[in-house]
């Protein structure tokens, strides 16, 4: 059993904690670093930056990705930008302000110490990326440009057109490939981690399946880093890539790692609505569009007129009416929930009545089409390509979609889970965004963890292990996990039911979206807790996976991921049920202000909910880590 959670937050003022902790941590001397093996799973921003940096330091690193190349990880799709408290614009930004905004934006459900460290290293991240050749936007004088993003009152976001994630990942990937070339990182592509090896109370390695040959084997090391992204695809439809999954984290959870705050999911307000039942994923349209677009729906149900024929009096600019000061720029969760409200009222637009208008007509009339094209040309083009509609002439249709997950494996201040030797970085951990992530902060956190946090903290864990060899790969402990994975893989192939993996994933997604989506209530969550296991039982009896386990078989890859989503979905429902308050991306209808805003309950819920696997999906055990706010006063958000 797990005792009280040790978050290991250092003593002292918040702005000195990281500095003093860095000094207090044990070091591994340069000559000894080569005696340590480290496994890094995932090659997105967090994984690639961690593997590259650990390799540079002299550790022996093995990096794993299920992609054909590290550069394809889904960090690549991030559009907007990355925050850095450089204050290059001289507009009053500072490390403290970025810290403050992030704690507040996270609705007071993150750790102050972690967030402050994130804000501190944001400065180094920008330097590092520019040094690598990331082509951030620049002014004519050749210096870096910034913009205000996601409602921030200062311009602290660095960006590379609408492809910031791509450029940052290419930077981290190039650093990684430099280490591959130098021989300090051994790169394993098309290998999927399917289990964690825990022996004598510590993480000793992983079991992977070669996606081309089907070969299942173990790899051992002194420490394992999971940088395996978020669980947004539990909704089936999300802005995540097709293969994004929770399996690495979930398998670690089943081996003892705590899973924290699974109820926190960010629903992004500006995505293109689904066009039919076979929609496979949703595409995000950058939030920056809300700077110039006006959001509205027709006032009348069954409005038959086209958008441009509807006069102003018959248009309901619901955000501008309800939130006069922030208008269309209210935070993501508020914008999303309000879109759901009007669509649920039957005011939705489009053939499936599943969207709201994002209208640029006024901006085009004011600034001219050329100026709008200069600002958003690539986004408009992308929209037209997907929908076949021209947003210069007709308003865009948008609707919220799952975008990012703030919950994840529980980690202490050093990014180590409760399983010694198991570190978790990037979206896969829970620590920095609280209940809601600010725009342009995901890229910052992934790179902070990988470049500037893990490389220090992992040494503190490894130093006392000097002289110990990693677990032998032919050890019985490895063989046991390998055969469990092989049996599980074989089991899926032998069911030979009647329905495809995708069918079950879609049905699961509908349950999760309806009951654990933008609004949750006790009744719905209890239904989720009975319907999800029922569907899972059917899945385990009736799923059909054709082909064999000894060559490329994407149905076989998917089935294991969907099985883990089923268990996660159940935990997500329990966590949502348990958290009887609204905060950030978690909105309980029972807990709202008279104006319909999220109402926190700081007295009872200012804690991290960290769940321990109890042997079955319905027997998770809750552990609480109390959150202390010594610097940022707890206040109710208001955007009126």
């Amino acid at each position, binding site marked *: 059993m797990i005792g009280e959670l040790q978050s290991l937050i250092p003593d002292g003022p918040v702005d000195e904690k990281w500095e003093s902790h860095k000094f207090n941590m044990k070091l591994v001397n340069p000559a000894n670093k080569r005696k340590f093996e480290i496994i890094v799973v995932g090659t997105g921003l967090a994984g690639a930056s961690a593997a*590259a940096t650990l390799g*540079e330091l002299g550790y022996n690193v093995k990096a794993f990705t299920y*992609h*054909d*190349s*590290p*550069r*394809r*990880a*889904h960090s*690549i*799709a991030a559009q907007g930008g990355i925050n850095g408290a450089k204050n*290059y614009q001289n507009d009053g930004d500072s490390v403290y302000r970025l810290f403050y905004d992030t704690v507040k934006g996270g609705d007071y459900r993150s750790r102050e110490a972690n967030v402050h460290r994130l804000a501190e290293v944001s400065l*180094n991240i920008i*330097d*590092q*990326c*520019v*040094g*690598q*050749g990331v*082509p*951030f936007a*620049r002014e*004519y*004088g*050749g*210096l870096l440009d910034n913009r205000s993003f996601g409602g921030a009152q200062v311009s602290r976001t660095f960006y590379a*057109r609408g*492809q910031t994630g*791509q*450029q940052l990942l*290419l930077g981290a990937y*190039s*650093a990684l*490939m*430099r280490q*591959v070339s130098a021989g300090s990182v051994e790169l394993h*592509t098309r290998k999927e981690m399917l289990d964690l090896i825990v022996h004598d109370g510590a993480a000793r390695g992983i079991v992977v399946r070669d996606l081309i040959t089907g070969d299942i084997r173990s790899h051992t090391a002194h420490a394992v880093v999971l940088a395996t992204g978020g669980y947004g695809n539990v909704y089936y439809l999300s802005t995540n*890539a*097709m*293969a994004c999954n929770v399996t690495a984290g979930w398998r670690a959870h089943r081996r003892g790692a705590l899973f924290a705050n699974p109820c926190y999911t960010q629903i992004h307000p500006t995505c293109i609505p689904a066009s*039919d039942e*076979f929609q*496979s*994923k949703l*595409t995000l349209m950058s939030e920056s569009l809300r700077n110039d677009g006006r959001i509205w729906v027709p006032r009348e149900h069954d409005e038959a007129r086209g958008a441009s024929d509807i006069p102003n009096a018959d248009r309901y600019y619901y955000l501008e009416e309800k939130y006069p000061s922030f208008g269309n720029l209210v935070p993501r969760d508020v914008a999303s929930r309000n879109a759901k409200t009007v669509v649920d009222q039957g005011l939705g637009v489009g053939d499936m009545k599943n969207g709201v208008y994002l209208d640029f007509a006024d901006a085009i009339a004011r600034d001219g089409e050329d100026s709008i094209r200069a600002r958003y040309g690539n986004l408009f083009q*992308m929209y037209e*390509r*997907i929908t*076949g509609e021209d947003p210069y002439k007709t308003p865009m249709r948008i609707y919220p979609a799952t975008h990012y997950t703030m919950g994840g494996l529980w980690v202490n201040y050093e990014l180590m889970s409760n399983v010694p030797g198991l570190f978790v970085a990037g979206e896969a951990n829970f620590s920095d965004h609280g209940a809601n992530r600010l725009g342009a902060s995901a890229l910052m956190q992934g790179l902070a963890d990988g*470049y*500037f946090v893990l490389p220090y903290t992992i040494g503190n864990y490894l130093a006392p292990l000097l002289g110990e060899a990693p677990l032998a790969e032919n050890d019985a402990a490895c063989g046991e996990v390998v055969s469990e994975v092989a049996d599980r893989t074989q089991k899926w192939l032998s069911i030979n039911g009647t329905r495809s993996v*995708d069918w079950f994933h879609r049905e699961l997604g509908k349950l999760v979206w309806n009951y654990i989506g933008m609004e949750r209530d006790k009744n719905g969550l209890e239904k989720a807790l009975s319907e999800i296991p029922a569907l899972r039982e059917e899945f385990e009896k009736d799923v*059909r996976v*054709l082909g064999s386990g000894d*060559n*490329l078989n*994407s*149905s076989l890859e998917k089935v294991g991921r969907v099985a883990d989503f089923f268990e996660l979905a159940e935990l997500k429902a329990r966590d949502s049920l348990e958290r009887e308050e609204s905060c950030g991306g978690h909105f309980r209808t029972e807990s709202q202000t008279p104006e319909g805003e999220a109402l926190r309950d700081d007295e009872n819920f200012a804690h991290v909910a960290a769940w321990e696997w109890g042997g079955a999906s319905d027997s998770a055990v809750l552990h609480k880590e109390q959150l202390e706010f010594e610097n940022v006063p707890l206040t109710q958000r208001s955007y009126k």
Partner: protein
Amino acid sequence: MENTLTLTLKVWRQNSPTESGRFETYTVEEISPDMSFLEMFDVLNENLIHSGEEPIEIASDCREGICGTCGCMINGRAHGPEKATATCQLHMRKFEDGDTIVVEPWQAASFPVIKDLVVDRSPLDRIIEAGGYITVPTGSAPDANLIPVPKDAADTAFDAAACIGCGACVAACPNSAAQLFTSAKVQHLNLLPQGQAERWSRTENMVETMEEYFGSCTNHGECHEACPKEIPLDFIAYTNRDYVKSKRKNRNLLGQTP
């Protein structure tokens, strides 16, 4: 549903790199014009699974045209008929009811078929490994605004850096050359002040690694036509220039030039 499409698909099926492949013909019905090309394949695969036939392996991940995972020859063209569009962003409204669509994997000796429409593009990573980076160990970078980069240079470097590494340039090239990919990667870094210190070694190492795996460029320009990011051919010229300069510099050091 109104205006749906019925299509005949001729799809390359190949079980493994060592077995020979064949075309199989399938029919799909009630395809919405708003569906993406890959969603049409999802429908076909659902039908195949239902009828007990193994689904077709076709690579994709982000499905928003940025990760570079997807890509196949559609009616003989890399990524299909729509310009500047990756396979995942191609939509069925670009096809007519009753069309026959031929779908094949990328064809290049350096991209062997793994299964069906999925190929191995790992030689592209070998080119990056050879020098597609700036040596800046973590923590050692100077302040980001210390070196001004002229906006034009930054913008042009970005145009090169927009490459998604899908391999369409190689697939479209009659010689299976990788000049467009390689030059985009070389020039992204060579155009920036930060990239100058390693400019010449980078150029030589990347070009020579490319030549180990891929064919030679004979200036057809098919690569640019097929490129979903419309990477300009100019980068190939810049890279050729840098390569020659680099070789001359080597001779200088040896005292061989007049």
